[in-house]
């Protein structure tokens, strides 16, 4: 598309696409912020009259790649959808993501490349705690907005030291708190064992859970990612007599812990954090075992977990229906998975941020927009964001659910809380539905 024709879209967005299904999308995306008032300018690095460049790092190869490598394809699908409907203020979003193989050394390298060579306007959704932690200093010293890190670590909520960095998903501590309270209320006599990844993920989750379960915990076992033998840890949990195990682990360790427990004849109630519980991915890892040595096809049946955005096992959810439509239109290979839905949910938030930042935003405008408007955005998340000038933490809550077959059933209403000893409360807001167009329409903050 040429520059002039793109500007045309910006000026007469509604008229141009009125006859198409995506009319409202064009109006919302193209017209958001009164696109006709002034001309688009190249207002900062990575933003031109007709493009905005967004970058990210993901593990596309290596141990962390299964599942996670699908996230950027979901983001791609949603950005394509927005672009096809007029973009944001008439600008097309260019989405560049690079492979860091979940290795922090690589992350530094690819993020350098994204910032210095590709000259992205902002980073969005960089995945992983150890990986992303290697680049936050660089991004903040360069003044690059570092939005919506794909990790529940609390490291991203530090507005003093890292003013450009923002979390997105509920952090592991509040997840631990919500899980801990649920277990304390519903399994008051359980002997609780902890199965933890040996980093922030496990530590924060355990810290949250311990606020409610200090007296019930009988064993605490950690694993180092990469060590594939978890027999000693599972043996120790079994020996301690734990009859309910909380796992703050990644999906492949969900599969490993399930198989190992089966080998040892150990059958506690399992409760995996959101990160480790994707039934489709874990199921695909375990599927082959159902044909051979393992007789039970649905190992995860009855496992407890948490949710904070809609998942693909609820095809009637209006958000999932939107995502399905977007995914089908994008024509990429594969099915809509929870990882792709995650990517789309985040991409939706990103569009909200860009719209709120105004027609010709600078990098600092984008950060200010998230701080000022972020807490009011309505999107796919069950609970609101916690963004403010003093808080860069993402979603404030989630609900507890039980895995049934490939789907799940909700066990609690949405519970919201905050870090430290903040109370856990039921969220009193309504469940949201996406706008008709499937594209948000936020007013600029300035």
């Amino acid at each position, binding site marked *: 598309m040429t520059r002039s024709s793109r500007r045309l879209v910006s000026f007469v967005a509604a008229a141009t696409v009125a006859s198409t299904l995506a009319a409202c999308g064009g109006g919302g995306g193209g017209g958001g912020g009164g696109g006709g008032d002034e001309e688009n300018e190249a207002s900062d690095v990575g933003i031109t009259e007709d493009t905005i460049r967004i970058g990210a790092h993901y593990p596309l190869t*290596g141990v962390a*790649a299964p599942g996670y490598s699908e996230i950027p394809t979901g983001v791609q699908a949603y950005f394509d959808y927005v672009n096809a409907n007029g973009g944001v203020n008439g600008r097309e979003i260019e989405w560049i993501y690079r492979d860091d193989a979940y290795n922090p050394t690589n992350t530094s390298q690819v993020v350098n490349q994204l910032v210095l060579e590709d000259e992205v306007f902002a980073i969005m959704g960089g995945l992983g705690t150890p990986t992303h932690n290697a680049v936050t200093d660089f991004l903040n010293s360069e003044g690059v907005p570092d939005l919506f890190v794909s990790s529940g670590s609390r490291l991203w909520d530090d507005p003093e030291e890292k003013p450009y960095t923002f979390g997105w998903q509920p952090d592991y501590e509040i997840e631990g708190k919500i899980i801990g309270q649920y277990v304390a209320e519903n399994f008051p006599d359980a002997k609780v064992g902890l199965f933890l990844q*040996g980093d922030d993920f496990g530590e924060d989750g355990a810290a949250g859970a311990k606020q409610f379960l200090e007296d019930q915990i009988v064993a605490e076992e*950690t694993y180092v990612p990469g060590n594939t*033998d978890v027999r000693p840890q599972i043996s120790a949990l079994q020996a301690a007599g734990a009859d309910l195990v909380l796992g703050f682990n990644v999906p492949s360790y969900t599969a*490993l812990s399930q198989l190992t427990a089966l*080998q040892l004849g150990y059958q506690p109630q399992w409760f995996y954090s959101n990160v480790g519980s994707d039934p489709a991915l874990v199921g695909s890892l*375990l599927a082959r075992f159902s044909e051979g*040595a393992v007789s039970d096809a649905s190992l995860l049946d009855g496992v407890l977990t948490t949710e904070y955005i809609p998942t693909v096992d609820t095809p009637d959810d209006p958000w999932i229906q939107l995502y399905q439509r977007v995914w089908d239109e994008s024509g990429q290979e594969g099915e809509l998975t929870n990882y792709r839905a995650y990517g789309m949910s985040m991409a939706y938030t990103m569009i909200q941020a860009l719209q709120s930042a105004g027609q010709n935003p600078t990098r600092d405008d984008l950060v200010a927009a998230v701080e000022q408007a972020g807490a009011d955005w309505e999107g796919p998340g069950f609970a609101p964001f916690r963004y403010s000038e003093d808080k860069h933490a993402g979603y404030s809550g989630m609900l507890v659910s039980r895995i049934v077959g490939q789907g799940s059933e909700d066990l609690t209403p949405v519970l919201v809380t905050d870090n430290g000893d903040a109370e856990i409360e039921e969220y009193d807001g309504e469940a949201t539905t996406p706008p008709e167009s499937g594209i948000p329409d936020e007013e600029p903050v300035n």
Partner: protein
Amino acid sequence: MQQFVNLTLGGVITGAVYAAFALALVLIWRSTRIVNFAQGAMAAITTFIALSLIESGQSYWVGLVVALLAGLVIGAVVERLVIRPVEGGPELNAVIVTLGLFIAIQALISVLFGVNQRAFVAPFSTIGFRVGDNSLALSPNTLFTLGAVLLVMVGLTALFRFTRVGLAMRASAFGQEVARLLGVRVGRMLTLGWALAAVVGSLAGMLIAAEVTFVTPTYMDALIVFGFVAAVLGGLDSPVGAVVGGLLLGLLLSYVRGYVGDELVGLAALVVLVVVLLVRPGGLFSTTQTRRA
């Protein structure tokens, strides 16, 4: 008590897995005096070949036989095409070449088979035997693993000690010129050494894959280090030493994991290695200090 028993059994199993890998290293060391860093990657590629067959509906045993044959061919080809040109030069050259080969083969696996984690189903049940109300960390499959490792150990010992081929291989490794003068076809022996080592490596890869459950092109990486430690513990020269070294290491690391913490496993292996090398520089099973030609 149950925990101790299970940690011990678990340690024996992981130890057997380290031993399987160490045996391949010992074999290549004895027959060519090269430490082969590409061993892990060579084992991984044959395992992926077998896994593709198994996933397409063939039985485990077809996969195993194909993996062993593939190992034989790959070992011989690698020796002829890649190692032969640097043989006879400084020892370091050959070792560096195997490092390069390691990276190249791993990349090749990613290209051919993709990078995703894949499930590897063991040939026998992995559900532990039950004693009373307790399950043991010992299953039909772990017995298979142990048995296969012991069989290879016995076979290799017999090969080197009692057969003419074994003697010729040892002679070629120690002193090429002397061996040649005595009528040994040194070139063939070196090729045979590599091919046999690759077969043992392939078997190790298959056994290890069943134990680690999920495989990626890099699944051998974590085990390579421990396999080396096991081989060095045993003196790099002795099949029995490799197995004993592997078992000792497996037991120790299992106790460390169960009673201390997973994060200290690497450190514990290092401590063992340093202590053994300080006390017995040639490894636990060395018979002679230096025997080189």
